[in-house]
Protein backbone atom coordinates (compact mmCIF):
# COMPACT_ATOMS: atom_id res chain seq x y z
CA UNK A 1 0.00 0.00 0.00
CA UNK A 2 2.58 2.54 1.06
CA UNK A 3 4.80 1.35 -1.78
CA UNK A 4 2.09 2.11 -4.27
CA UNK A 5 1.33 5.40 -2.64
CA UNK A 6 4.86 6.60 -2.80
CA UNK A 7 5.16 5.52 -6.40
CA UNK A 8 1.94 7.32 -7.19
CA UNK A 9 3.13 10.43 -5.46
CA UNK A 10 6.42 10.30 -7.32
CA UNK A 11 4.59 9.73 -10.59
CA UNK A 12 2.09 12.50 -9.92
CA UNK A 13 4.97 14.77 -9.10
CA UNK A 14 6.59 14.09 -12.42
CA UNK A 15 3.48 14.18 -14.53
CA UNK A 16 1.08 16.64 -12.92
CA UNK A 17 2.84 18.43 -10.09
CA UNK A 18 5.02 20.32 -12.47
CA UNK A 19 3.61 21.59 -15.72
CA UNK A 20 6.37 23.72 -17.09
CA UNK A 21 4.54 24.26 -20.37
CA UNK A 22 2.41 27.34 -20.91
CA UNK A 23 -0.57 27.34 -23.23
CA UNK A 24 1.24 29.41 -25.81
CA UNK A 25 4.10 26.89 -25.96
CA UNK A 26 1.90 23.91 -26.66
CA UNK A 27 3.10 22.86 -30.07
CA UNK A 28 2.67 19.39 -31.50
CA UNK A 29 5.86 18.83 -33.44
CA UNK A 30 6.83 15.61 -35.17
CA UNK A 31 9.29 13.73 -32.93
CA UNK A 32 12.92 13.68 -34.09
CA UNK A 33 13.92 11.00 -36.58
CA UNK A 34 16.50 9.46 -34.26
CA UNK A 35 13.72 8.42 -31.86
CA UNK A 36 12.41 5.94 -34.45
CA UNK A 37 15.36 3.68 -33.66
CA UNK A 38 13.73 2.90 -30.34
CA UNK A 39 10.30 1.92 -31.65
CA UNK A 40 8.96 -0.81 -33.92
CA UNK A 41 9.47 -1.57 -36.72
CA UNK A 42 13.09 -0.36 -36.44
CA UNK A 43 13.45 -1.84 -32.99
CA UNK A 44 11.84 -5.08 -31.92
CA UNK A 45 10.94 -3.67 -28.56
CA UNK A 46 9.79 -0.18 -27.55
CA UNK A 47 13.20 0.62 -26.08
CA UNK A 48 12.45 4.24 -25.27
CA UNK A 49 9.56 3.26 -23.01
CA UNK A 50 11.69 0.57 -21.37
CA UNK A 51 14.29 3.20 -20.62
CA UNK A 52 11.58 5.39 -19.06
CA UNK A 53 10.48 2.52 -16.87
CA UNK A 54 14.05 1.99 -15.70
CA UNK A 55 14.46 5.60 -14.67
CA UNK A 56 11.10 5.71 -13.01
CA UNK A 57 11.78 2.48 -11.11
CA UNK A 58 15.04 3.83 -9.68
CA UNK A 59 13.45 7.18 -8.95
CA UNK A 60 10.61 5.51 -7.06
CA UNK A 61 13.00 2.94 -5.58
CA UNK A 62 14.92 5.64 -3.77
CA UNK A 63 11.84 6.83 -1.90
CA UNK A 64 10.49 3.38 -1.17
CA UNK A 65 13.78 2.35 0.40
CA UNK A 66 14.24 5.61 2.27
CA UNK A 67 10.87 4.98 3.87
CA UNK A 68 11.86 1.40 4.72
CA UNK A 69 15.27 2.60 5.94
CA UNK A 70 16.93 0.14 3.57
CA UNK A 71 19.84 2.48 2.92
CA UNK A 72 21.97 0.01 1.06
CA UNK A 73 19.35 -0.17 -1.65
CA UNK A 74 18.82 3.60 -1.60
CA UNK A 75 22.43 3.94 -2.69
CA UNK A 76 22.07 1.27 -5.37
CA UNK A 77 19.02 2.97 -6.87
CA UNK A 78 20.69 6.37 -6.69
CA UNK A 79 23.70 5.15 -8.64
CA UNK A 80 21.58 3.35 -11.18
CA UNK A 81 19.36 6.39 -11.66
CA UNK A 82 22.36 8.55 -12.53
CA UNK A 83 23.63 5.87 -14.86
CA UNK A 84 20.31 5.39 -16.68
CA UNK A 85 19.60 9.11 -16.83
CA UNK A 86 22.95 9.72 -18.48
CA UNK A 87 22.35 6.87 -20.87
CA UNK A 88 18.93 8.24 -21.79
CA UNK A 89 20.35 11.69 -22.41
CA UNK A 90 22.54 10.25 -25.15
CA UNK A 91 19.84 8.33 -26.95
CA UNK A 92 18.20 11.17 -28.89
CA UNK A 93 20.69 13.94 -29.71
CA UNK A 94 17.89 16.41 -30.59
CA UNK A 95 16.60 16.08 -27.03
CA UNK A 96 19.89 16.50 -25.23
CA UNK A 97 18.88 19.87 -23.76
CA UNK A 98 16.00 18.40 -21.83
CA UNK A 99 18.45 16.65 -19.54
CA UNK A 100 20.29 18.19 -16.62
CA UNK A 101 23.05 15.89 -15.45
CA UNK A 102 23.85 18.19 -12.55
CA UNK A 103 20.28 17.85 -11.30
CA UNK A 104 20.39 14.04 -11.27
CA UNK A 105 23.74 14.05 -9.53
CA UNK A 106 22.51 16.51 -6.94
CA UNK A 107 19.45 14.37 -6.31
CA UNK A 108 21.54 11.20 -6.02
CA UNK A 109 23.87 12.91 -3.55
CA UNK A 110 20.89 14.09 -1.48
CA UNK A 111 19.40 10.60 -1.52
CA UNK A 112 22.69 9.19 -0.28
CA UNK A 113 22.50 11.39 2.82
CA UNK A 114 19.51 9.15 3.63
CA UNK A 115 17.59 12.21 4.73
CA UNK A 116 14.14 11.83 3.24
CA UNK A 117 13.29 15.54 3.43
CA UNK A 118 16.50 16.50 1.67
CA UNK A 119 15.94 13.93 -1.03
CA UNK A 120 12.38 15.12 -1.52
CA UNK A 121 13.54 18.68 -1.94
CA UNK A 122 16.35 17.84 -4.38
CA UNK A 123 14.12 15.59 -6.47
CA UNK A 124 12.21 18.68 -7.64
CA UNK A 125 14.97 19.83 -9.96
CA UNK A 126 15.27 16.44 -11.57
CA UNK A 127 11.49 15.93 -11.75
CA UNK A 128 11.22 19.17 -13.67
CA UNK A 129 13.45 17.84 -16.43
CA UNK A 130 11.25 14.78 -16.76
CA UNK A 131 8.05 16.83 -16.64
CA UNK A 132 9.10 19.37 -19.24
CA UNK A 133 9.90 16.77 -21.81
CA UNK A 134 6.70 14.84 -21.12
CA UNK A 135 4.54 17.90 -21.45
CA UNK A 136 6.12 18.93 -24.71
CA UNK A 137 6.70 15.60 -26.37
CA UNK A 138 4.38 12.89 -25.15
CA UNK A 139 1.41 13.77 -27.37
CA UNK A 140 3.62 13.76 -30.44
CA UNK A 141 5.18 10.47 -29.53
CA UNK A 142 1.80 8.88 -29.00
CA UNK A 143 0.47 10.20 -32.29
CA UNK A 144 3.55 9.00 -34.12
CA UNK A 145 4.31 5.64 -32.52
CA UNK A 146 1.15 4.46 -30.80
CA UNK A 147 -1.51 5.42 -33.28
CA UNK A 148 -1.54 3.41 -36.44
CA UNK A 149 -2.19 5.53 -39.47
CA UNK A 150 -5.46 5.56 -41.40
CA UNK A 151 -3.49 6.92 -44.32
CA UNK A 152 -1.76 3.60 -44.78
CA UNK A 153 -5.01 1.68 -44.93
CA UNK A 154 -6.65 0.98 -48.23
CA UNK A 155 -10.29 0.13 -48.64
CA UNK A 156 -11.82 -1.92 -51.44
CA UNK A 157 -14.78 0.04 -52.71
CA UNK A 158 -17.61 -2.52 -52.91
CA UNK A 159 -19.08 -0.81 -55.98
CA UNK A 160 -16.01 -0.44 -58.20
CA UNK A 161 -13.96 -3.14 -56.42
CA UNK A 162 -10.94 -0.85 -56.67
CA UNK A 163 -8.65 -0.20 -53.73
CA UNK A 164 -8.74 3.41 -52.63
CA UNK A 165 -7.08 5.49 -49.92
CA UNK A 166 -9.02 5.73 -46.68
CA UNK A 167 -9.72 9.47 -46.91
CA UNK A 168 -10.88 9.20 -50.52
CA UNK A 169 -13.17 6.43 -49.38
CA UNK A 170 -14.61 8.72 -46.72
CA UNK A 171 -15.24 11.16 -49.52
CA UNK A 172 -17.28 8.62 -51.47
CA UNK A 173 -19.13 7.55 -48.35
CA UNK A 174 -20.27 11.06 -47.69
CA UNK A 175 -21.21 11.55 -51.35
CA UNK A 176 -23.41 8.47 -51.28
CA UNK A 177 -24.82 9.55 -47.93
CA UNK A 178 -25.87 12.82 -49.57
CA UNK A 179 -27.30 10.88 -52.49
CA UNK A 180 -29.81 9.46 -50.03
CA UNK A 181 -30.69 12.65 -48.17
CA UNK A 182 -30.79 15.00 -51.16
CA UNK A 183 -33.06 12.70 -53.19
CA UNK A 184 -35.31 12.21 -50.22
CA UNK A 185 -35.53 15.96 -49.69
CA UNK A 186 -36.63 16.30 -53.32
CA UNK A 187 -39.27 13.62 -52.90
CA UNK A 188 -37.44 11.27 -55.30
CA UNK A 189 -37.98 8.18 -53.19
CA UNK A 190 -37.09 5.64 -55.87
CA UNK A 191 -33.70 7.26 -56.40
CA UNK A 192 -33.19 7.63 -52.68
CA UNK A 193 -33.84 3.90 -52.26
CA UNK A 194 -31.23 3.07 -54.91
CA UNK A 195 -28.73 5.45 -53.33
CA UNK A 196 -29.38 3.84 -49.95
CA UNK A 197 -28.25 0.47 -51.29
CA UNK A 198 -24.97 1.92 -52.50
CA UNK A 199 -24.50 3.88 -49.31
CA UNK A 200 -25.20 0.86 -47.12
CA UNK A 201 -22.76 -1.39 -48.92
CA UNK A 202 -20.08 1.31 -48.67
CA UNK A 203 -20.83 1.80 -45.00
CA UNK A 204 -20.69 -1.92 -44.21
CA UNK A 205 -17.37 -2.20 -46.01
CA UNK A 206 -15.92 -0.13 -43.15
CA UNK A 207 -16.38 -3.20 -40.96
CA UNK A 208 -13.53 -4.80 -42.87
CA UNK A 209 -11.13 -2.06 -41.79
CA UNK A 210 -11.43 -2.50 -38.02
CA UNK A 211 -9.40 -5.74 -37.95
CA UNK A 212 -6.44 -3.95 -39.49
CA UNK A 213 -5.89 -2.20 -36.17
CA UNK A 214 -8.01 -4.03 -33.63
CA UNK A 215 -7.31 -7.61 -32.64
CA UNK A 216 -10.74 -8.08 -31.01
CA UNK A 217 -14.08 -8.27 -32.74
CA UNK A 218 -15.89 -6.55 -29.87
CA UNK A 219 -15.16 -3.08 -31.19
CA UNK A 220 -17.56 -3.69 -34.05
CA UNK A 221 -20.45 -3.24 -31.67
CA UNK A 222 -19.71 0.45 -32.02
CA UNK A 223 -20.31 2.71 -35.05
CA UNK A 224 -20.89 -0.23 -37.40
CA UNK A 225 -22.92 -2.56 -35.13
CA UNK A 226 -26.50 -2.98 -34.05
CA UNK A 227 -27.28 0.76 -33.98
CA UNK A 228 -26.21 1.17 -37.58
CA UNK A 229 -28.17 -1.94 -38.62
CA UNK A 230 -31.28 -0.59 -36.95
CA UNK A 231 -30.93 2.80 -38.65
CA UNK A 232 -30.43 1.21 -42.05
CA UNK A 233 -33.42 -1.07 -41.56
CA UNK A 234 -35.53 1.94 -40.55
CA UNK A 235 -34.42 3.92 -43.60
CA UNK A 236 -35.06 1.05 -45.93
CA UNK A 237 -38.52 0.52 -44.49
CA UNK A 238 -39.48 4.15 -45.06
CA UNK A 239 -38.13 4.27 -48.59
CA UNK A 240 -39.91 1.08 -49.58
CA UNK A 241 -43.24 2.04 -48.09
CA UNK A 242 -46.09 3.57 -50.11
CA UNK A 243 -45.87 6.87 -48.29
CA UNK A 244 -42.53 7.46 -46.52
CA UNK A 245 -42.71 9.23 -43.21
CA UNK A 246 -40.16 12.11 -43.23
CA UNK A 247 -40.00 12.30 -39.48
CA UNK A 248 -38.93 8.69 -39.16
CA UNK A 249 -36.57 9.03 -42.09
CA UNK A 250 -34.71 12.01 -40.66
CA UNK A 251 -34.60 10.48 -37.21
CA UNK A 252 -32.73 7.48 -38.58
CA UNK A 253 -30.42 9.67 -40.65
CA UNK A 254 -29.62 11.63 -37.50
CA UNK A 255 -28.91 8.47 -35.51
CA UNK A 256 -26.59 7.08 -38.15
CA UNK A 257 -24.75 10.36 -38.53
CA UNK A 258 -24.24 10.59 -34.79
CA UNK A 259 -23.63 7.06 -33.49
CA UNK A 260 -21.94 6.06 -36.74
CA UNK A 261 -19.95 8.78 -38.44
CA UNK A 262 -19.57 11.31 -35.62
CA UNK A 263 -18.65 8.97 -32.79
CA UNK A 264 -16.14 7.12 -34.92
CA UNK A 265 -14.62 10.44 -35.93
CA UNK A 266 -14.36 11.59 -32.33
CA UNK A 267 -12.38 8.50 -31.37
CA UNK A 268 -10.21 8.11 -34.43
CA UNK A 269 -9.78 11.42 -36.20
CA UNK A 270 -7.90 13.51 -33.63
CA UNK A 271 -4.69 11.61 -34.21
CA UNK A 272 -5.36 11.34 -37.89
CA UNK A 273 -5.44 15.14 -38.14
CA UNK A 274 -2.01 15.37 -36.53
CA UNK A 275 -0.51 12.58 -38.61
CA UNK A 276 -1.89 14.06 -41.80
CA UNK A 277 -0.03 17.33 -41.26
CA UNK A 278 3.23 15.47 -40.62
CA UNK A 279 2.81 13.26 -43.63
CA UNK A 280 2.28 16.18 -46.01
Amino acid sequence: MSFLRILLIAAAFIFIGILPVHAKDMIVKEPPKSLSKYYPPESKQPKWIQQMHKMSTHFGGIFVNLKEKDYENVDVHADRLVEEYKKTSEMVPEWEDYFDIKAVEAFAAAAKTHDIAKAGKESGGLGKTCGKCHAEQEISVWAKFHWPSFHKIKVTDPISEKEVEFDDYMGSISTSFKGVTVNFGEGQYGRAAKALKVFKSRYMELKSTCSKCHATQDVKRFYVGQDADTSFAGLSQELNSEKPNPEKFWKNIGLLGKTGCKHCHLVHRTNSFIQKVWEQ
Partner: protein
Amino acid sequence: MRRSSQIFDLIIGVGLIGVSGFAMLYFLVNERFEWIPEQVLELARDPEILKRPPAKKCSECHKIIYEAWKDSRHSISWTSETFIEASENRSKEKCLPCHIPQSVQGEKPSPRMDLRDEGIYCVSCHFIDNKMQGPYDLLAPPHPTFRNPDYVRSNFCGSCHQKTFKEWKATNVEDTCQDCHMPRKKSRLTQKAGFNLLHKKRWVGDHRFLHGEIKEKDVVMEPGWEENFFIISLKNQTIPHFVPTADNGDPRLYLYIKFFNEAGEEVDNAKEIIAPQQETALPYNKKMRYRYRLFDKIIKAEVQLKYQPAWSKEKSTLRTETVFR
Protein backbone atom coordinates in the same frame (compact mmCIF):
# COMPACT_ATOMS: atom_id res chain seq x y z
CA MET B 1 36.51 -73.32 -52.36
CA ARG B 2 36.64 -73.82 -48.58
CA ARG B 3 37.85 -70.32 -48.14
CA SER B 4 34.88 -68.84 -49.99
CA SER B 5 32.42 -70.96 -48.01
CA GLN B 6 34.03 -69.69 -44.82
CA ILE B 7 33.49 -66.16 -46.01
CA PHE B 8 29.94 -67.13 -46.90
CA ASP B 9 29.35 -68.48 -43.37
CA LEU B 10 30.83 -65.35 -41.92
CA ILE B 11 28.54 -63.15 -43.97
CA ILE B 12 25.52 -65.21 -42.96
CA GLY B 13 26.63 -65.11 -39.33
CA VAL B 14 27.19 -61.39 -39.29
CA GLY B 15 23.96 -60.95 -41.21
CA LEU B 16 22.04 -63.02 -38.67
CA ILE B 17 23.51 -61.12 -35.79
CA GLY B 18 22.82 -57.91 -37.65
CA VAL B 19 19.19 -58.79 -38.36
CA SER B 20 18.49 -59.98 -34.86
CA GLY B 21 20.38 -56.97 -33.51
CA PHE B 22 18.25 -54.69 -35.65
CA ALA B 23 15.10 -56.53 -34.58
CA MET B 24 16.10 -56.17 -30.94
CA LEU B 25 16.89 -52.51 -31.42
CA TYR B 26 13.62 -52.00 -33.30
CA PHE B 27 11.75 -53.69 -30.47
CA LEU B 28 13.61 -51.66 -27.90
CA VAL B 29 13.10 -48.32 -29.67
CA ASN B 30 9.46 -48.83 -30.48
CA GLU B 31 8.07 -50.97 -27.67
CA ARG B 32 10.31 -50.85 -24.61
CA PHE B 33 12.08 -47.55 -24.83
CA GLU B 34 11.61 -46.97 -21.12
CA TRP B 35 14.27 -49.69 -20.63
CA ILE B 36 16.94 -47.58 -22.23
CA PRO B 37 18.85 -45.77 -19.51
CA GLU B 38 18.99 -41.96 -19.63
CA GLN B 39 22.83 -42.02 -19.83
CA VAL B 40 22.72 -44.05 -23.05
CA LEU B 41 20.18 -41.67 -24.53
CA GLU B 42 22.41 -38.73 -23.66
CA LEU B 43 24.90 -40.07 -26.23
CA ALA B 44 22.33 -39.83 -29.00
CA ARG B 45 21.02 -36.38 -28.07
CA ASP B 46 21.72 -33.40 -30.28
CA PRO B 47 21.77 -30.37 -27.96
CA GLU B 48 21.27 -27.97 -30.90
CA ILE B 49 17.67 -29.16 -31.29
CA LEU B 50 16.78 -27.76 -27.89
CA LYS B 51 18.16 -24.31 -28.66
CA ARG B 52 15.05 -23.17 -30.57
CA PRO B 53 16.70 -23.66 -33.98
CA PRO B 54 15.13 -22.63 -37.30
CA ALA B 55 12.86 -25.17 -39.02
CA LYS B 56 15.68 -26.17 -41.35
CA LYS B 57 17.37 -27.95 -38.44
CA CYS B 58 14.34 -30.19 -37.91
CA SER B 59 14.38 -31.05 -41.61
CA GLU B 60 17.59 -33.05 -41.07
CA CYS B 61 15.25 -35.78 -39.87
CA HIS B 62 11.62 -34.62 -40.36
CA LYS B 63 12.07 -33.91 -44.05
CA ILE B 64 8.55 -34.63 -45.28
CA ILE B 65 6.92 -32.64 -42.50
CA TYR B 66 9.33 -29.78 -43.09
CA GLU B 67 8.58 -29.61 -46.79
CA ALA B 68 4.85 -29.68 -46.17
CA TRP B 69 5.18 -26.89 -43.61
CA LYS B 70 7.22 -24.85 -46.09
CA ASP B 71 4.17 -24.99 -48.36
CA SER B 72 1.82 -23.83 -45.63
CA ARG B 73 0.60 -20.35 -44.85
CA HIS B 74 2.07 -20.77 -41.36
CA SER B 75 5.62 -20.61 -42.69
CA ILE B 76 4.99 -17.18 -44.22
CA SER B 77 2.82 -15.61 -41.55
CA TRP B 78 5.47 -12.93 -40.99
CA THR B 79 6.73 -12.39 -44.52
CA SER B 80 3.33 -12.35 -46.22
CA GLU B 81 2.92 -9.15 -48.28
CA THR B 82 -0.70 -8.73 -47.31
CA PHE B 83 0.19 -9.09 -43.63
CA ILE B 84 3.01 -6.56 -43.90
CA GLU B 85 0.62 -4.10 -45.50
CA ALA B 86 -2.17 -4.60 -42.97
CA SER B 87 0.16 -4.34 -39.98
CA GLU B 88 1.77 -1.11 -41.20
CA ASN B 89 5.10 -2.70 -41.93
CA ARG B 90 4.70 -4.92 -38.84
CA SER B 91 4.81 -1.96 -36.47
CA LYS B 92 1.41 -2.59 -34.87
CA GLU B 93 2.23 -4.42 -31.66
CA LYS B 94 -1.21 -5.99 -31.40
CA CYS B 95 -0.55 -7.88 -34.61
CA LEU B 96 2.54 -9.79 -33.54
CA PRO B 97 1.46 -12.50 -31.06
CA CYS B 98 -0.14 -14.99 -33.46
CA HIS B 99 2.08 -14.26 -36.44
CA ILE B 100 5.41 -14.79 -34.62
CA PRO B 101 4.44 -16.84 -31.56
CA GLN B 102 6.97 -17.79 -28.93
CA SER B 103 5.06 -20.86 -27.81
CA VAL B 104 1.57 -22.19 -28.49
CA GLN B 105 -0.17 -23.49 -25.37
CA GLY B 106 -3.92 -23.09 -25.73
CA GLU B 107 -4.19 -19.33 -25.37
CA LYS B 108 -3.06 -16.27 -27.28
CA PRO B 109 0.75 -16.63 -27.42
CA SER B 110 3.32 -13.92 -26.76
CA PRO B 111 5.39 -12.59 -29.62
CA ARG B 112 9.00 -13.75 -29.89
CA MET B 113 12.09 -11.68 -30.38
CA ASP B 114 14.24 -13.97 -32.54
CA LEU B 115 13.98 -15.71 -35.93
CA ARG B 116 10.90 -13.76 -36.93
CA ASP B 117 11.11 -14.69 -40.60
CA GLU B 118 10.33 -18.29 -39.64
CA GLY B 119 6.75 -17.20 -38.91
CA ILE B 120 4.82 -19.93 -37.10
CA TYR B 121 7.43 -22.66 -37.12
CA CYS B 122 8.12 -26.08 -35.60
CA VAL B 123 9.55 -24.74 -32.36
CA SER B 124 6.56 -22.40 -31.77
CA CYS B 125 4.17 -25.30 -31.96
CA HIS B 126 6.16 -28.15 -30.42
CA PHE B 127 8.82 -26.94 -28.01
CA ILE B 128 7.55 -26.68 -24.43
CA ASP B 129 9.45 -27.28 -21.18
CA ASN B 130 12.60 -28.29 -23.02
CA LYS B 131 10.84 -31.16 -24.81
CA MET B 132 9.26 -31.72 -28.20
CA GLN B 133 5.60 -32.20 -27.42
CA GLY B 134 3.40 -34.07 -29.82
CA PRO B 135 0.57 -36.57 -30.11
CA TYR B 136 2.66 -39.70 -29.42
CA ASP B 137 4.29 -41.51 -26.56
CA LEU B 138 7.52 -42.50 -28.28
CA LEU B 139 11.27 -42.49 -28.18
CA ALA B 140 13.20 -39.95 -30.20
CA PRO B 141 16.87 -40.53 -29.44
CA PRO B 142 17.97 -37.07 -30.71
CA HIS B 143 15.65 -35.10 -28.44
CA PRO B 144 13.28 -35.58 -25.49
CA THR B 145 9.57 -35.85 -26.36
CA PHE B 146 6.34 -35.66 -24.44
CA ARG B 147 2.85 -36.86 -25.30
CA ASN B 148 0.28 -34.09 -25.04
CA PRO B 149 -3.28 -34.96 -26.09
CA ASP B 150 -3.99 -31.31 -26.99
CA TYR B 151 -2.21 -31.82 -30.30
CA VAL B 152 -5.16 -33.66 -31.75
CA ARG B 153 -7.71 -31.25 -30.32
CA SER B 154 -9.18 -28.13 -31.86
CA ASN B 155 -8.35 -25.90 -28.92
CA PHE B 156 -4.70 -26.13 -29.94
CA CYS B 157 -5.52 -24.30 -33.18
CA GLY B 158 -7.93 -22.11 -31.23
CA SER B 159 -4.96 -20.46 -29.50
CA CYS B 160 -4.79 -18.25 -32.58
CA HIS B 161 -7.80 -19.13 -34.73
CA GLN B 162 -9.89 -17.83 -31.89
CA LYS B 163 -12.94 -16.76 -33.82
CA THR B 164 -13.02 -19.86 -36.00
CA PHE B 165 -12.63 -22.03 -32.92
CA LYS B 166 -15.67 -20.40 -31.31
CA GLU B 167 -17.67 -20.94 -34.49
CA TRP B 168 -16.60 -24.58 -34.63
CA LYS B 169 -17.48 -25.17 -30.99
CA ALA B 170 -20.97 -23.79 -31.49
CA THR B 171 -21.67 -26.38 -34.21
CA ASN B 172 -21.05 -29.37 -31.88
CA VAL B 173 -19.43 -31.25 -34.76
CA GLU B 174 -16.91 -33.82 -33.57
CA ASP B 175 -14.39 -33.59 -36.41
CA THR B 176 -11.47 -31.49 -35.23
CA CYS B 177 -9.57 -28.85 -37.15
CA GLN B 178 -6.73 -31.36 -37.55
CA ASP B 179 -9.08 -34.02 -39.01
CA CYS B 180 -9.85 -31.76 -41.96
CA HIS B 181 -6.85 -29.46 -42.24
CA MET B 182 -4.10 -31.96 -41.32
CA PRO B 183 -5.39 -35.22 -42.83
CA ARG B 184 -3.27 -38.15 -41.58
CA LYS B 185 -1.37 -40.69 -43.63
CA LYS B 186 0.50 -43.81 -42.45
CA SER B 187 4.14 -42.90 -42.89
CA ARG B 188 7.34 -42.26 -40.96
CA LEU B 189 7.96 -39.22 -38.81
CA THR B 190 11.60 -39.06 -39.90
CA GLN B 191 13.51 -39.60 -43.13
CA LYS B 192 17.12 -39.69 -41.91
CA ALA B 193 18.63 -42.49 -43.96
CA GLY B 194 19.08 -45.70 -41.96
CA PHE B 195 17.78 -44.37 -38.69
CA ASN B 196 14.24 -43.91 -39.92
CA LEU B 197 13.82 -47.66 -40.41
CA LEU B 198 14.32 -48.11 -36.68
CA HIS B 199 11.01 -46.38 -36.08
CA LYS B 200 7.70 -47.95 -36.93
CA LYS B 201 5.18 -46.32 -39.22
CA ARG B 202 2.66 -44.01 -37.64
CA TRP B 203 -0.06 -41.59 -38.63
CA VAL B 204 1.48 -38.34 -39.80
CA GLY B 205 -0.60 -35.18 -40.11
CA ASP B 206 -0.28 -33.09 -43.27
CA HIS B 207 1.67 -30.02 -42.24
CA ARG B 208 0.56 -28.03 -45.28
CA PHE B 209 -2.50 -27.10 -43.19
CA LEU B 210 -4.70 -27.58 -46.22
CA HIS B 211 -6.71 -24.62 -47.36
CA GLY B 212 -8.10 -22.79 -50.31
CA GLU B 213 -10.49 -25.28 -51.88
CA ILE B 214 -14.21 -24.87 -51.46
CA LYS B 215 -15.94 -27.69 -53.31
CA GLU B 216 -19.42 -27.93 -54.79
CA LYS B 217 -20.64 -30.17 -52.00
CA ASP B 218 -19.40 -27.70 -49.38
CA VAL B 219 -21.46 -24.73 -50.46
CA VAL B 220 -24.76 -25.58 -52.10
CA MET B 221 -26.36 -22.96 -54.33
CA GLU B 222 -30.07 -22.95 -55.25
CA PRO B 223 -31.49 -20.25 -57.50
CA GLY B 224 -35.19 -19.78 -58.30
CA TRP B 225 -38.01 -17.43 -59.24
CA GLU B 226 -40.98 -16.26 -57.23
CA GLU B 227 -43.56 -13.83 -58.69
CA ASN B 228 -41.53 -10.69 -59.31
CA PHE B 229 -38.56 -11.81 -57.29
CA PHE B 230 -35.39 -13.71 -58.01
CA ILE B 231 -34.30 -15.81 -55.05
CA ILE B 232 -31.00 -17.50 -54.45
CA SER B 233 -29.90 -19.46 -51.44
CA LEU B 234 -26.44 -20.52 -50.33
CA LYS B 235 -25.88 -23.19 -47.76
CA ASN B 236 -22.63 -24.15 -46.08
CA GLN B 237 -23.40 -27.80 -45.80
CA THR B 238 -20.17 -29.48 -44.68
CA ILE B 239 -17.80 -27.00 -43.08
CA PRO B 240 -18.30 -26.68 -39.31
CA HIS B 241 -17.34 -23.03 -39.13
CA PHE B 242 -18.42 -19.96 -41.08
CA VAL B 243 -17.45 -19.83 -44.74
CA PRO B 244 -15.29 -17.99 -45.24
CA THR B 245 -13.85 -17.82 -41.73
CA ALA B 246 -11.18 -15.51 -40.37
CA ASP B 247 -9.62 -13.86 -37.40
CA ASN B 248 -7.83 -10.81 -38.75
CA GLY B 249 -7.73 -11.77 -42.40
CA ASP B 250 -10.46 -10.68 -44.80
CA PRO B 251 -11.38 -13.64 -47.07
CA ARG B 252 -14.53 -13.19 -49.12
CA LEU B 253 -17.05 -14.82 -51.37
CA TYR B 254 -18.55 -12.57 -54.00
CA LEU B 255 -21.94 -13.42 -55.45
CA TYR B 256 -22.71 -11.62 -58.71
CA ILE B 257 -26.07 -11.74 -60.43
CA LYS B 258 -26.92 -10.27 -63.81
CA PHE B 259 -30.49 -10.02 -65.09
CA PHE B 260 -31.40 -10.16 -68.78
CA ASN B 261 -34.59 -9.29 -70.69
CA GLU B 262 -36.07 -11.04 -73.74
CA ALA B 263 -33.85 -9.06 -76.07
CA GLY B 264 -30.87 -10.51 -74.24
CA GLU B 265 -29.88 -7.16 -72.77
CA GLU B 266 -28.52 -6.89 -69.25
CA VAL B 267 -31.03 -4.68 -67.47
CA ASP B 268 -30.06 -5.00 -63.84
CA ASN B 269 -27.49 -6.58 -61.57
CA ALA B 270 -26.81 -7.29 -57.94
CA LYS B 271 -23.89 -8.26 -55.76
CA GLU B 272 -23.37 -9.74 -52.32
CA ILE B 273 -20.16 -9.63 -50.31
CA ILE B 274 -20.05 -12.67 -48.08
CA ALA B 275 -17.30 -11.96 -45.60
CA PRO B 276 -16.59 -12.73 -41.97
CA GLN B 277 -15.36 -9.19 -41.30
CA GLN B 278 -18.72 -7.85 -42.43
CA GLU B 279 -20.56 -10.52 -40.47
CA THR B 280 -22.16 -11.84 -43.64
CA ALA B 281 -20.29 -15.19 -43.89
CA LEU B 282 -22.27 -18.41 -44.30
CA PRO B 283 -23.00 -20.17 -40.99
CA TYR B 284 -22.80 -23.95 -40.76
CA ASN B 285 -25.76 -25.88 -42.08
CA LYS B 286 -28.07 -22.92 -42.43
CA LYS B 287 -29.59 -21.72 -45.67
CA MET B 288 -28.97 -18.05 -46.40
CA ARG B 289 -31.50 -16.51 -48.77
CA TYR B 290 -30.98 -13.47 -50.96
CA ARG B 291 -34.01 -11.89 -52.63
CA TYR B 292 -34.12 -9.39 -55.47
CA ARG B 293 -37.15 -7.53 -56.71
CA LEU B 294 -37.40 -7.51 -60.49
CA PHE B 295 -38.54 -4.28 -62.06
CA ASP B 296 -38.38 -5.28 -65.73
CA LYS B 297 -39.50 -8.39 -67.53
CA ILE B 298 -36.63 -10.71 -66.86
CA ILE B 299 -36.19 -14.06 -68.55
CA LYS B 300 -32.70 -15.02 -67.52
CA ALA B 301 -30.24 -14.59 -64.67
CA GLU B 302 -26.52 -15.28 -64.69
CA VAL B 303 -25.01 -16.17 -61.35
CA GLN B 304 -21.34 -16.25 -60.45
CA LEU B 305 -19.70 -17.18 -57.16
CA LYS B 306 -16.09 -16.12 -56.62
CA TYR B 307 -13.66 -16.65 -53.77
CA GLN B 308 -10.87 -14.39 -52.60
CA PRO B 309 -8.64 -15.81 -49.85
CA ALA B 310 -7.39 -13.64 -47.01
CA TRP B 311 -3.87 -13.53 -48.42
CA SER B 312 -4.67 -12.55 -51.97
CA LYS B 313 -6.22 -9.75 -53.95
CA GLU B 314 -7.25 -12.09 -56.75
CA LYS B 315 -10.57 -13.85 -57.00
CA SER B 316 -11.11 -17.31 -58.40
CA THR B 317 -14.41 -18.42 -59.87
CA LEU B 318 -16.05 -21.26 -57.97
CA ARG B 319 -19.30 -21.50 -59.85
CA THR B 320 -21.20 -20.04 -62.82
CA GLU B 321 -24.80 -20.78 -63.55
CA THR B 322 -27.41 -19.50 -65.98
CA VAL B 323 -30.98 -19.67 -64.72
CA PHE B 324 -33.95 -19.32 -67.08
CA ARG B 325 -37.37 -18.30 -66.02
